[in-house]
Each structure stands twice: as structure tokens, then as C-alpha cells.
């Protein structure tokens, strides 16, 4: 019984999904020809897609386990690091040169900013008490304090 329970818990927090994302990142970082920025950008985007897929499954649809949080942090910081390196490389080229490879600096920059926001969402160093205080202020406010409807079509 205890063994079954232990096995079940192990399966639930198995980091296999995160391993897959990390292996993609490892391959990406091992790429020898760093001049191939377009190819690296494509692979980075694929890694982000894989990361977002696992993130949705383990962090958004379910309550993340402590191991999920750690693996998530490893992936998001690696993706940010690689994206920032891509930005540095992109800055060595003109917009016209990048456009020849269907690349845009503002897209790389936006993807890095999005990853940074993700880091803040899940790993920002905010005391639990402050989070609870803000949750009450945001979600328990009387209707008259509810902010005006800013909803608009995206």
C-alpha cells in the first residue's frame, strides 16, 4: 500500500516532461555554428513552444508540485538566457540583414520580455503575506471598487 502510494506520487511528479524541454535547450546550446541566427531562432521558438505546452499541463491546469516549480524555473531562465544571447547577436546585424532571414529584433525582444514576465509570475520573490494581502484587495473588493470594464477585442 505504502509502496503503491509512493510509486503513484513519484509518477505524478516525474520530471519527464521537463526533461524533454531541457534536452531541447541543451541541443540548442550545443549548436556549434552560432552564425546561423535564423536557425537558432527557429529552434529557440520550438523550445519555447514545448516549454509552454508542459507549463500549461503541469502549472496551469494542475497545481504544480515543488519539483515542477524547480524544473519550470530552470527552463524559463535558460530560455531567457538564450533569447538574450540571440538579441545580442541580432544587434550585430542591421534590420535589413535580419529581414532577409525573416527575423525581427522586436519579436525576439517581445518573446524575452514574455519569458521574464513568466519568471516574475511563478518565481518572483514576494513574501506570502504580501501575496495574501494583495489577493484580498484584488479579489475581495466590493463591486463598486471593481475597475471599469477595459475588456476589448484582442
Amino acid at each position: 500500500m505504502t509502496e503503491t502510494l509512493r510509486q503513484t506520487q513519484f509518477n505524478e511528479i516525474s520530471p519527464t516532461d521537463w526533461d524533454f524541454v531541457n534536452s531541447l535547450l541543451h541541443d540548442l546550446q550545443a549548436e556549434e555554428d552560432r552564425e546561423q541566427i535564423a536557425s537558432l531562432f527557429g529552434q529557440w521558438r520550438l523550445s519555447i513552444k514545448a516549454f509552454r505546452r508542459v507549463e500549461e499541463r503541469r502549472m496551469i491546469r494542475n497545481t504544480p508540485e515543488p519539483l515542477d516549480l524547480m524544473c519550470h524555473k530552470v527552463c524559463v531562465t535558460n530560455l531567457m538566457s538564450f533569447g538574450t544571447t540571440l538579441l545580442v547577436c541580432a544587434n550585430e546585424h542591421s534590420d535589413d540583414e535580419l529581414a532577409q532571414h525573416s527575423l525581427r529584433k522586436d519579436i525576439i525582444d517581445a518573446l524575452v520580455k514574455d519569458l521574464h514576465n513568466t519568471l516574475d509570475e511563478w518565481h518572483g520573490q514576494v513574501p506570502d503575506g504580501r501575496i495574501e494581502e494583495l489577493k484580498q484587495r484584488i479579489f475581495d473588493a466590493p463591486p463598486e471598487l471593481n475597475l471599469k470594464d477595459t475588456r476589448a477585442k484582442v
Partner: protein
Amino acid sequence: MPRPSLISRIHELKYEMRRARLNPSEMPRLVSEYDARVLEACVSYSCSKAELLRTIASDFGKWIRDEKMPPLEEPQS
């Protein structure tokens, strides 16, 4: 638990950014609007960006269920 419309709008923009078939050229505009709405909320609730993002992160999944949004992993119609 009531959810302010501004927070719903922030979740909506995040959902747009996570769509499987999103054209990457849409990202600069979406990130820019997302950051603008987040900063608007920071002013309203007198908190930092990091504090706001940490506070509402776990509400995103609930918003997806409340709004009955399609799972992000599946192709969007």
C-alpha cells in the same frame, strides 16, 4: 471570488499570447498591451509589477475554466 475586469483583460491577453498558432509578429503588440494593462493594475492596487504578477498567476487557470476557454495545447479554430 469576484474577478475585476482589468484582471480578466490581463488573463485574456496572456491567453492570446499562449495560443498554439499565434503568429510571432503579433507578440510585440500583445506584450506591449499586456505590460500596459499590468502597470495600470499596479497603480490601481498600489503594488509592484512583480507583486501583481505573482498574485494573479494562479488565477489564470481558474479564469480559463471560468470562461470555458479551449485548452491551449489544442489547435485553435
